């Protein structure tokens, strides 16, 4: 049909025009929007528009018991949920003075690194898809799925594990789990050369990603950039090494850095982290074979569990960067205030806005994905 109500609007002639990216746009990671002002193909200004995934987590958490919140937190960042659980649990433990048993600490590291692997594999796919290399996405997502199977065995769910609880973890490993996980890790490691062929060493990708969204170290620090994005500018800062939590001080791993600070460097850092994660995971598996013990410290009745008044700020190195929770307790059964500081809050708004200025329109999506911005983390 021909809708005859369309009112034709004459716009003043301009060399600049506006283009909406999202929220419904395949070049946007998640439900997020960008409003670009373009001159020709070049972005003159970019404005991020979030809130499409806002659920009011911080308010919801104030209304739920300490234990109930373990079900809520993983949903804040869907592709990498475990660091959310870990950071929350550690904050509660700090406030409540709970001691996490050793085995539980190793188990937590296990799921944390598994989660990092899944997030990075997902990321490779996402980054490749923004430049039209869908094959890599199909490979990455399916290989990630093998790890999700392991998650399912261990935690009973593929995506929302809700496995880490303040004081430890919810269940011990099922029989045979460590062996099947080792197999999957070998598989993932065996797949890496194939990803190299297809993706990392692909001349077209190198051409597109090199020099895209470049930031130098000073810019990165100024804009609060953290995680792999910061390491891609040459600063070897990793909370796992610099502020070690759990048993990270007892495992060997390298902090991967690159110096170029562009989309390609960021991808390479993540590739390196996949290898380091595999290395950590193998050490953790060895430990788990020998370290016995309880997997949770005794907890009070979940319905009547009060945490002493106080505040705690805990930080975790998630796959995307520095993830922090600021939790205030007034001594009651529910948190008084929870503030979630997701790394993407820095990456997806000001940094993205700044990096896109002067970029070509075809690179906006790539820049966003190369920052591995996670919109639900921004919106909460």
């Amino acid at each position: 049909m021909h809708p005859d109500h369309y009112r034709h609007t004459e716009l003043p002639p301009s060399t600049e025009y506006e283009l909406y990216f999202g929220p419904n746009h395949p070049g946007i990671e998640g439900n997020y929007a960008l409003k670009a002002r373009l001159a020709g193909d070049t972005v003159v200004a970019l404005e991020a528009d979030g809130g499409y995934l806002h659920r009011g987590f911080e308010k919801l958490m104030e209304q739920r018991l300490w234990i109930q919140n373990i079900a809520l937190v993983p949903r804040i960042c869907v592709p990498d949920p475990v660091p959310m659980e870990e950071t929350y649990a550690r904050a509660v433990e700090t406030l409540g003075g709970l001691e996490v048993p050793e085995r539980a600490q190793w188990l937590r590291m296990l799921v944390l690194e598994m989660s990092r692997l899944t997030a990075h594999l997902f990321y490779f796919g996402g980054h490749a898809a923004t430049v039209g290399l869908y094959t890599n996405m199909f490979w990455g997502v399916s290989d990630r799925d093998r790890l999700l199977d392991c998650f399912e065995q261990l935690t009973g769910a593929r995506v929302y594990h809700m496995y880490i609880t303040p004081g430890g973890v919810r269940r011990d490993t099922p029989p045979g789990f460590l062996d099947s996980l080792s197999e999957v890790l070998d598989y993932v490691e065996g797949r890496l050369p194939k990803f190299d062929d297809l993706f990392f060493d692909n001349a077209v990708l190198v051409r597109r990603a090199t020099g895209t969204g470049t930031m130098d170290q000073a810019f990165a620090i100024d804009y609060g950039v953290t995680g792999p994005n910061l390491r891609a500018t040459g600063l070897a800062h990793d909370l796992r090494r610099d502020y070690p939590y759990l048993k990270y001080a007892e495992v060997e791993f390298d902090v991967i850095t690159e110096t170029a600070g562009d989309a390609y460097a960021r991808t390479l850092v993540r590739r390196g982290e996949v290898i380091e994660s595999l290395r950590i995971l193998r050490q953790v598996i060895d430990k788990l074979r020998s370290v016995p013990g309880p997997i949770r410290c005794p907890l009070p009745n979940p319905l009547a569990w009060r945490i002493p008044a106080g505040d705690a700020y805990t930080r975790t190195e998630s796959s995307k960067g520095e993830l922090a929770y600021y939790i205030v307790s007034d001594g009651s059964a529910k948190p008084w205030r929870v503030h979630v500081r997701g790394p993407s809050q820095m990456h997806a708004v000001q940094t993205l806005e700044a990096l896109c200025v002067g970029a070509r329109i075809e690179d906006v999506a790539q820049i966003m994905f190369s920052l591995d911005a996670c919109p639900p983390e921004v919106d909460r």
Partner: protein
Amino acid sequence: MSKSLPTPLEGVFRRVPGVRWRQQAERHLRVELSEAENLPALLALLKGEAGYRHLSAISCVDWPDADEFELVYHLDSYTTQVLISAHIRLPAAPGRYVSVSGLYRPAGFFERDIHEMFGVQFEGALDLRPFILTEWGGPPPMRKSFDTEGYVRDHYQWVDYGPEWLAELEKRGGGIVE
């Protein structure tokens, strides 16, 4: 109180009046400022002299009983590697403070967020337009005075299930226990 304060910090804390600090956790200092207006000076000194170039977050806490907002600035240094949380308190009315986004760029996001969620005004902030709650008509939702459940009840509907088994049960005198 721990005695081992990294050298640059000692000097910084001495130069800002009303600073009280204590070790909150391992490599985590809790700093309280009795006068809120001294905070920018403290931040400037920390950034300039102690290498605190990373503003990790600004958290806001509503204390309705005291009629105050607490602002917590979490700072980290890539060299000293001691986390600092600086606490200040503002009267809830008028709920105004100065922006530190000139000093720390990330403050731009956090101040915008706090303005949106708590209604705190930051003078000189980069951008205080709504970001998340662009479609929002209610009061700042993170304030303790905001009644979420009441709001939800007024604006949305839940399903009123009527499955067959429930109808049968009600016929027999049973039903949902409220």
